[in-house]
């Protein structure tokens, strides 16, 4: 490598680091006064409860957003049916658990049924319009309406929850006076597990290398003899699987009802808009931010709890149109 090239590389790395630092400063500048104000509004104990609420909801959002962002990064498809996948996966899980009495079977069934649906959608529908950004998005939103209506026809309009196994019921005691629902802690742990797994796959394995290369340059990857179509299908099915599974997980502490598909989609979208489309770290960061904002908003200003998503999104979009960790298009 010539000296100039080394120098150029330094400049690039420097600018990336400086960029990350700027993101950090912006985040802190907004977060610290908010935290200070929040602490004046509630007790420390309530504050930590809300932190955990936010993180566990953020964990659920990470499940959804990671699949969404991976599909987008690889295939350039914004799969709006992700909300529908979540809802229907949850319903399938509820029914399976009711029939078999096994929570884990429900979890698996939710994921598997939705990945079959994903296979159908990718192979039969999306393949016909591959590469046309907007028709793809519009097709997936049409699909969400069909899935939502189908779910309404099969499972009805009443809010539904899943039957949790005994060991996930009740509260977990920390110290003398701090109780927190076990299930939410379980969701948090699951998300950390999945997150580590995804990062490991992404950074350390050949599949991850192929996927990352596919995100950067699909044509070259295909030219190197990798079956990029199979990679696409695999990624889509995997994303659908996580979405279906997250529906079952969500059914344990949120209710499933018609319309919830679009609500959860909104949260997932805000996560990827804030974090940056196509970036796994972005999905994780966005999920934490959105989860926390939502938890505190619900506790402090319940009437405005949707609107509170608006403000950070607006600010971040004005400063960084591609999200916190998104790359410039």
């Amino acid at each position: 490598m010539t000296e100039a090239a080394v120098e150029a590389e330094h400049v690039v790395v420097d600018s990336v680091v400086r960029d990350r630092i700027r993101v950090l400063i912006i985040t802190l500048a907004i977060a610290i006064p908010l935290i200070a104000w929040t602490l004046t509004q509630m007790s420390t104990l309530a504050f930590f409860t809300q932190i955990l609420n936010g993180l566990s909801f953020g964990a659920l959002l990470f499940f959804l957003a990671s699949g969404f962002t991976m599909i987008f990064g690889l295939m350039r498809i914004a799969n709006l049916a992700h909300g529908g996948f979540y809802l229907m996966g949850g319903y399938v899980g509820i029914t399976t658990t009711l029939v078999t009495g096994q929570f884990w079977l429900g979890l698996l069934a939710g994921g598997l049924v939705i990945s079959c649906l994903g296979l159908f959608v990718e192979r039969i529908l999306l393949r016909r319009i591959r590469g046309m950004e907007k028709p793809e998005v519009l097709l997936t939103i049409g699909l969400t309406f069909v899935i939502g209506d189908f779910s309404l026809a099969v499972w009805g309009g009443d809010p539904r929850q899943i039957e949790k196994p005994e060991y996930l019921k009740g509260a977990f005691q920390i110290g003398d006076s701090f109780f927190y629902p076990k299930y939410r802690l379980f969701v948090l742990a699951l998300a950390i597990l999945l997150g580590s797994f995804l990062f490991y796959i992404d950074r350390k394995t050949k599949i991850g290398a192929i996927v990352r290369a596919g995100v950067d340059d699909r044509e070259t990857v295909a030219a190197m003899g990798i079956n990029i179509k199979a990679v696409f299908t695999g990624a889509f099915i995997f994303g659908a699987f996580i979405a279906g599974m997250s529906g079952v997980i969500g059914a344990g502490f949120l209710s499933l009802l018609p319309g919830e598909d679009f609500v959860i989609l909104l949260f997932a979208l805000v996560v990827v808009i804030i974090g940056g489309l196509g970036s796994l770290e972005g999905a994780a960061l966005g999920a934490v931010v959105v989860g926390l904002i939502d938890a505190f908003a619900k506790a402090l200003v319940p009437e405005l709890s949707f609107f509170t998503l608006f403000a950070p999104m607006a600010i971040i979009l004005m400063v960084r149109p591609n999200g916190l960790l998104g790359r410039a298009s």
Partner: protein
Amino acid sequence: MSMIESAGQARKALPITARVQLAMLAIALVVAFIFPFLASTFILRLVTLALVSALFAMSVDLMAGYAGLVSLGHAGVLGSAMYGVGYVASKTDGGFALQLLVGFAAGIAASVIFGLMAMRSSGVYFILITIAQGMIVWGLATLLVKITGAENGLPGIRRPVVVETEFRYYFVALIVVLVSSVGLFIVVRSPVGFALKGLRESETRMRMLGHNTTWLKFQMFMLSGFFATIAGILLVYLNEFVNPTDVIIASSALPVLMSILGGIGTLIGPFIGAFVVVFLRNYVSLEIDRWQSIMGLTFIFVVLFARDGLIGAVKKHWYKYLDSKGSGPAALAATEMAAPPLQSG
């Protein structure tokens, strides 16, 4: 065939097309003014709804079809105007003028906020941001009980006494929609309209040419928002009611469906699409309670197989007919005038 020859043929073909278009427009206008004397109140109401939906769909198509920026949250603008009117009518004792003023201000304010947020993005990112915007308006509508009445909505909105009947209100809607359509017609043929088309073809090239595309997109939001606001005010007085179902995502997706179904990137397309969708919805709902599925399936079908919409199909056959008579436009003119492809940009 040389280019000059084919261009000459196109010029010869054009007047026929234009004459047919004018004749059809005249017939449509005559029908529009005569049929209310023959139709039932029910049909009249449906047609009024179709007219208002058409205006809304055209405002969405200004973005989706002309500028290539699909908004899936425009019901947020429409709904803000509706809630503005509804709030004054339902929660205060403000008169008609104040209702209009607040409704208008709310719609324009929503456009400004939406525009500021989305003006720097494009493509899929733009769609995602607009979805979030629309959903957040829905969230406010369901949660701000004191202002929006949540699920119960805002009752007690009344049309002014002069236009109280469905019959008279139809003419109000017709005239407002016609005037707005002329306004939109002028917009799409203005420099801004052409710049928007440039945005659709290539935003990078537009920027290279020295256009401030961010400002252009903001202008687009304001223009589109202006007409969506008018549609919202017409709609709230038509229904005399507003509740969160007016701002659900399906309400934002419908005008997009209308545009594609009729022919995206034209003004007449959304108009025709609106009539098809409104009547389809009404008659489907009479038979089965599965409108959402029908809408979703129509979306999928249109996107997969009929991206040029009805107008595209008619144009294709019309040109084929002209070609068979020897006066048809050659390939050059045909590609110039065919409905723009949805996938560009």
